[in-house]
């Protein structure tokens, strides 16, 4: 088990389509997290940014962009790119610096201004990029993959489109209680069924939008937290950033094919399962200890898959858990009480940090109308392009 680090502060910029530069969202989130921590920017020894593309500049930038906007003060700087797991890897880098004694208190920031419509690869002819290839050769958007996973669940487990819709109904009801969420309206199953099919069997309201948004956390050593008057802060006990194991036999974004299992038998567990198991092992806890989970619901069907990959239920039993109300607010293990991506949309470098913000507020008992009563242990789960994934476990 690894030593813990303290979450001293959490902050967000509301998600939406604001049409401004990503730096504005990141700085707003950073300032909110600093205020929440009771610290000044000058107190921060290191800043870590989860990367995005700066419009018109051929590169991924973040840490230094936020440091400059907040005012150069000489902090150590790091930038991290890991697709959807960028925020979690930024948190992991902060934790490593703290535990190594390189910094006492670290600011982690992620923000993005997402384009409208489908995500698409950067421009130019780039046949060495699997993300470019799947668009150029197949026209396979992200929802195409979500549709494949959903249809596979229907064939294997008997899930139905109405089951998927019930995930949206649940998440939108909780997102309606979250002032940082982009979508604040409750959605009915009829509204999901009445929305246009995007990628069979998934409809528009089954699939998360792209958004602008920002999130930040201030992390510190336990010693610094106690010196700062925080005797019992929220602590991060595990950060899982494992890669898949060969052969990866589940078709993953952005690949056109899986690995072949002809020479090596597939690992006993899928990549998603290995992400969460690693976090459980590092934290020394199991799914039965959880008070809540924040998972990457890129589609409604994918949230059901996470129930199983988190070990909340057996394989194929995700729908039963949902129907029993276990994953709703007030249930045995509420999932996505923030409203999830269903209510936020994707602001890629910010999302994994936003999940940890939600855990922090929940574990402090400061989540208002969406508070999970008596929350003590929370987990996040996330998966992104190119074999990236993450899970963070926080405790109080």
């Amino acid at each position, binding site marked *: 088990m690894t030593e813990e680090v303290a979450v001293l502060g959490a902050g967000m910029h509301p998600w939406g389509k604001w049409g401004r530069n990503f730096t504005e969202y990141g700085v707003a989130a950073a300032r909110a997290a600093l205020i929440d921590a009771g610290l000044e920017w000058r107190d921060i020894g290191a800043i870590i940014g989860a990367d995005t593309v700066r419009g018109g500049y051929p590169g991924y930038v973040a840490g230094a962009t936020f440091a400059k906007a907040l005012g150069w003060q000489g902090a150590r700087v790091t930038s991290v790119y890991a697709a959807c797991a960028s925020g979690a890897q930024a948190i992991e880098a902060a934790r490593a610096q703290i535990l190594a004694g390189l910094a006492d208190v670290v600011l982690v920031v992620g923000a993005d201004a997402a384009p409208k419509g489908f995500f698409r690869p950067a421009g130019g*002819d780039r046949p060495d990029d699997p993300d470019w290839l799947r668009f150029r050769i197949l026209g396979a958007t992200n929802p*195409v993959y979500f549709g494949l996973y959903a249809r596979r669940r229907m064939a294997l487990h008997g899930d139905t489109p109405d089951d998927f819709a019930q995930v949206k109904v649940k998440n939108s009801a909780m997102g309606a209680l979250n002032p940082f969420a982009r979508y604040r309206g409750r959605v009915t199953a009829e509204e999901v069924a009445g929305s246009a099919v995007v990628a069979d069997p998934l409809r528009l309201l089954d699939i998360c939008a792209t958004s602008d948004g920002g999130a930040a956390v201030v992390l510190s050593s336990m010693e610094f937290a106690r010196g700062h008057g925080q005797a019992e802060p929220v602590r991060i006990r595990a950060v899982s950033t494992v890669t898949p194991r060969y052969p990866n036999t589940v*078709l993953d974004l952005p690949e056109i094919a899986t690995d072949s299992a002809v020479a090596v038998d597939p690992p006993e567990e899928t990549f998603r399962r290995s992400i969460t198991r690693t976090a459980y092992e590092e934290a020394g806890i199991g799914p039965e200890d959880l008070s809540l989970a924040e998972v990457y619901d890129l589609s409604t069907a994918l949230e059901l898959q996470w129930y199983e990959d988190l070990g909340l239920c057996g394989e194929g039993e995700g729908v039963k858990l949902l129907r029993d109300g276990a994953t709703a607010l007030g249930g045995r293990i509420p999932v996505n009480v923030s409203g999830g991506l269903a209510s936020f949309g994707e602001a890629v470098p910010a999302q994994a940090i936003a999940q940890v913000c939600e855990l922090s507020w929940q574990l402090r008992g400061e989540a208002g109308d969406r508070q999970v009563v008596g929350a003590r242990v929370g987990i996040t789960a996330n998966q992104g392009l190119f074999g990236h994934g993450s899970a963070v476990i926080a405790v109080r």
Partner: protein
Amino acid sequence: MVAGWFTGEGDDFRLLGTRCSACASVFFPREDHHCRNPDCGGGELAPVPLSRRGRVWSFTDSRYRPPSPYVTDPELSWEPCAFIAVELEPERMVVLGQAAPGITVAELAVGLEVEVVPGVLHEDAETTWTTWHWRPTGVTA
């Protein structure tokens, strides 16, 4: 735009991957430089045709026009395009592809047998870009 991903014509049309001479791992899209099996010391990667037939692992479609770099004619209305992920038993792998033109999700089911057929990705005045399509066996164009 990508060289050597398929070969042959008509009934001889095949997807082309590569196979490691040391561990027999198969790769598609073709891997020409390094065997990706972490336990393999590395061998020569030689081209190998993939199975012509497989079974549907899953399927879906795209009801909205994909963004570039996919090439479509914005003057024409978008016709939904079906996708099929196909499990190839001998290679123990899943390969995604567009369904042959005219095939809709209504005609597909997980487990259905499909075969690879040559297809046209798009064409302009100078060039026809060819590709592979998956088509249920017994269906003729």
